């Protein structure tokens, strides 16, 4: 290995280290703001998104939003006590399918997005907190009711990750709990996986 190669490797490593450090330092409210502005900016400016190209919208959500969510945590919460009854393999499958469903659902909501504005509520959690809620308010231009959207985030080794979205008091994760429970009751964990797969079709 030449000296130049070694040097470039060292530079890469250092860059990766500083990127991670910066990520870890970003406060959860700053993260929510940065990511939502980024997604909405793309939604406003990308001609394909504007034209309602579902595949493109899906890609945007997958690339910009999904990395900031902890889907396995979300799936575990939606499963409740059935989570422990599932094998690691089933848990993996459930997470994959639930993620696909959530990404598609969010893409649908984004494609209906027009020119709403987001207000960021003052963030009050202490700097040492590891589980926080970031509150935002989506204000519609057309006279519709403003919608409060809260994000629950948890501090992980890979930075802050969201594990729930609460829209107007409706927790997305809690909302799936009844459904998941009913599916597991009637068809077992595999029954739920099958239903999720069919829905994602």
């Amino acid at each position, binding site marked *: 290995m030449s000296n130049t190669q070694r040097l470039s490797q060292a530079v890469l490593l250092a860059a990766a280290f500083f990127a991670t450090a910066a990520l870890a330092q970003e406060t959860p409210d700053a993260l929510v703001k940065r990511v939502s502005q980024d997604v909405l900016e793309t939604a406003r400016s990308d001609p394909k998104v504007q034209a309602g190209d579902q595949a493109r919208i899906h890609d945007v959500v997958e690339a910009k939003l999904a990395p900031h969510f902890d889907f396995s945590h979300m799936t575990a919460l939606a499963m409740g006590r059935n989570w422990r009854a599932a094998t690691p393999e089933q848990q993996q499958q459930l997470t994959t399918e639930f993620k696909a469903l959530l990404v598609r659902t969010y893409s649908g909501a984004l494609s209906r997005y027009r020119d709403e504005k987001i207000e960021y509520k003052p963030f009050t959690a202490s700097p040492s907190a590891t589980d926080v809620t970031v509150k935002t308010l989506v204000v519609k231009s057309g006279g519709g*009711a403003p919608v409060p959207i809260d994000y629950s985030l948890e501090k992980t080794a890979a930075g802050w990750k969201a594990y729930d979205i609460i829209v107007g*008091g*409706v927790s997305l994760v809690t909302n799936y709990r009844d459904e998941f429970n*009913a599916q597991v009751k009637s068809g077992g964990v595999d029954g739920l996986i099958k239903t999720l797969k069919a829905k994602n079709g």
Partner: protein
Amino acid sequence: MIRNLRSMLLMAAAMPLLAGCAMGPTRDDPFEPFNRAMYAVHEPIDTHVVRPFIDAYAKYTPAPLRIAISNFFNNIDDLFSAINDGLQGKRDKFGNDMGRVTINSGLGLGGLIDIASQIGVERGNEDFGQTFGVWGLDQGPYLFIPLFGPTTVRDGSGWIVRLYLGPAGYIPDVPTRNVIYGIGAIDARYQAQDAVSFVDEAALDRYAFIRRAYLQRRLYQVYDGNVPPQKKEDE
């Protein structure tokens, strides 16, 4: 006619009891089999009749007109919100809502323009169902009513009080009154359109999804956004 109506009501009252034995109902939704039957009536009508109609409404009426219609009905709701602020002893919210009604009814041309929101006075969004909740009444059994949507015994009672108090009921001319009710219903459904699309995309079982969302939303509203943690666990 009256006898028919009475036997229908009796049947409606008896059905959940009969059906309740067949399936395991939950605590929130003891009449689940009956409600699911009502939802099965509602869904095709909503999908094939109501939704195309609302889509056409959104497409063919100019946005300023739609906004004015929403504002007009919101203004009436704000008045009832103020009444409920009073019943719940929420003075600040009462002041806000009364201020909104005064500004919007006067400067806002009878509620057609929502000036109050433009100057930052937020809507209170209180109603009789929430007041009953604040007074300590539980939701009671969940109900799904075709064309009306999700409600509970408590919230439905609130609606009956609301409809009884008017103000459309005071309009002596029946056709005019019905037109007002009709436009109000169209506006309400139009405002719910995005939520309905969301349920279609998100839900595995629309009935259960709507129920949980409705109950979460109402709990949140009764507590004005600060639901105590043990109440959340309860769900």
